[in-house]
């Protein structure tokens, strides 16, 4: 059992769960009034990007994958979130 | 096809130099496909301007004007003459699925999907547009109904094509004879999943999910057209690379091998 807890995958999972709760809390506290809030949006989108990256790297084992796959997946996360944030600020 | 003895391939090399083209039926069927799709595109876009679709929320006089345009009738005539070629293009896909190691159930599902799809996705909407132009005396409310019926049947006909492309994609993925590349199977699956996404056209009257919307029409259409093009190229390669010994009219020498493969592919 201890091996399960010390397993790097479990640590990644703990991190993911924690930041999920943090991002929900940010939305609840900072966005309770349901007004435009750039801080909240930037924070939750960045957290989502980090989470996506963590899952891809560790759970999907892209860490050990060939370079092209690393590049494609990271590129997807980067381009997607850059576009999302860019569009968000452009639409304000 | 892996176990097919080497001898037939050698004799296939010889037979290709002979003037007789054994795959003539397949080639004729195959070359009707680009003809049909080009005609289809020409009729829908520059002739009748049915596509890109008009807005579901355009004002009534616009719809009435559009439904009265004479070009819709001409489009209708061309399509009624040519729509029989759609089955031929589907038959080309079916032929390749038949060569795969999968159960005939796949090609039968595709066949039934093709039959239902041709009716609801082509013949019916076509006549809806044709009827309005045929008799200009109809009330605007009737014309509006035909307009909605035409576009919704054309863009919102999901189930028949979905089952067809699902069977096609699955057959490619499960196939062990390597008739079509595996990635084409996955591509087919995205294609039909995005086609499923057209479901909101039945709800939205404007915006990205209406029948002329960014998501339901343009995105799905981009994927579909590129997919169609690639499938088409893959089918071309598949027909081309089919060994002569595997043909139903294979020369008599390697007959045992041919029989064996036929019985296996249609098991």
């Amino acid at each position, binding site marked *: 059992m201890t091996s399960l807890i010390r397993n790097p*995958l479990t640590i990644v999972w703990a991190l993911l769960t924690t930041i*999920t709760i943090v991002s929900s809390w940010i939305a609840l506290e900072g966005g309770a009034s*349901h007004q435009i809030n750039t801080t909240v949006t930037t924070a939750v989108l960045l957290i*989502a990007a980090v*989470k*996506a990256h963590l*899952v891809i790297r560790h759970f999907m*084992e892209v860490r050990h994958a060939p370079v092209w796959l690393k590049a494609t997946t990271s590129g997807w996360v980067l381009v997607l979130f850059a576009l999302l944030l860019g569009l968000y600020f452009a639409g304000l | 096809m892996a176990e097919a003895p080497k001898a037939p391939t050698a004799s296939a090399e010889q037979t290709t130099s002979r003037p007789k083209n054994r795959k003539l039926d397949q080639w004729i069927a195959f070359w009707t496909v680009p003809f049909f799709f080009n005609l289809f595109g020409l009729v829908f876009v520059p002739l009748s301007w049915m596509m890109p679709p008009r807005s579901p929320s355009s004002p009534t006089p616009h719809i009435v004007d559009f439904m009265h345009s004479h070009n819709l009738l001409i489009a209708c005539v061309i399509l009624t003459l040519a729509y029989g070629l759609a089955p031929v293009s589907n038959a080309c896909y079916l032929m390749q699925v038949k060569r795969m190691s999968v159960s005939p159930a796949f090609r039968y599902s595709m066949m039934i999907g093709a039959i239902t799809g041709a009716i609801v996705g082509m013949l019916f909407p076509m006549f809806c547009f044709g009827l309005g132009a045929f008799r200009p005396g109809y009330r605007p409310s009737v014309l509006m109904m035909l307009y909605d019926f035409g576009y919704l049947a054309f863009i919102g006909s999901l189930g028949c094509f979905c089952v067809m492309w699902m069977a096609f994609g699955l057959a490619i993925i499960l196939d062990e004879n390597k008739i079509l590349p595996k990635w084409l199977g996955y591509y087919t699956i995205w294609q039909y999943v995005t086609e499923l996404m057209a479901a909101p056209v039945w709800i939205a009257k404007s915006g990205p*999910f209406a029948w002329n919307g960014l998501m339901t029409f343009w995105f799905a259409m981009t994927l579909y057209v590129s997919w169609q093009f690639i499938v088409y190229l893959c089918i071309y390669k598949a027909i081309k690379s089919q060994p002569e010994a595997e043909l139903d009219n294979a020369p008599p020498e390697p007959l045992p091998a041919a029989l064996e493969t036929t019985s296996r592919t249609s098991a």
Partner: protein
Amino acid sequence: MWFFVIGDFLIFGVYFVGYMYFRGQNHELFLSSQARLNLDIGAINTVVLLTSSLFVALGTAAARAGDKVDALRRFWTALAFGAAFPLLKMFEWIPEISAGLTPGTNLFFMYYYVMTGMHLCHVLLGLVIMCFVIRNLKAPGTPKISFVETGATYWHMVDVLWLVLFALLYLMR
């Protein structure tokens, strides 16, 4: 499978970007509609999927190490968590639909139902794949590790897509 995963990432990417673009045109509508979503179930579902993903990853590692018993136990756990997702989704959707919030309500809800619905289809397919992975592990002899890995990759992809959806639909302001 990676070909499929990347393609799916791209297709969903188009949907995400489209959502953001149309959101930019009408912030108020999206914000006020967002207020009517159930953030609690959304957050619980995120954790459920993450946990399920963890067990899939652990199960894959066990299968690779040749530990079939452990692998099976972990995949069963992952399946249980995964199966909770559609159930929770129903608890989220049914009150919303009975409150009159349907895809026809407005553009936000159209996006909401289309994207979560499309994602739900992926989840259901993932559950089917997971059942096949379990069957593969249960079969006598050495399991096909490549199939286990393929199934796992698919499931993690479903997880990644949900993480983005969660941020876009529930959290951002």
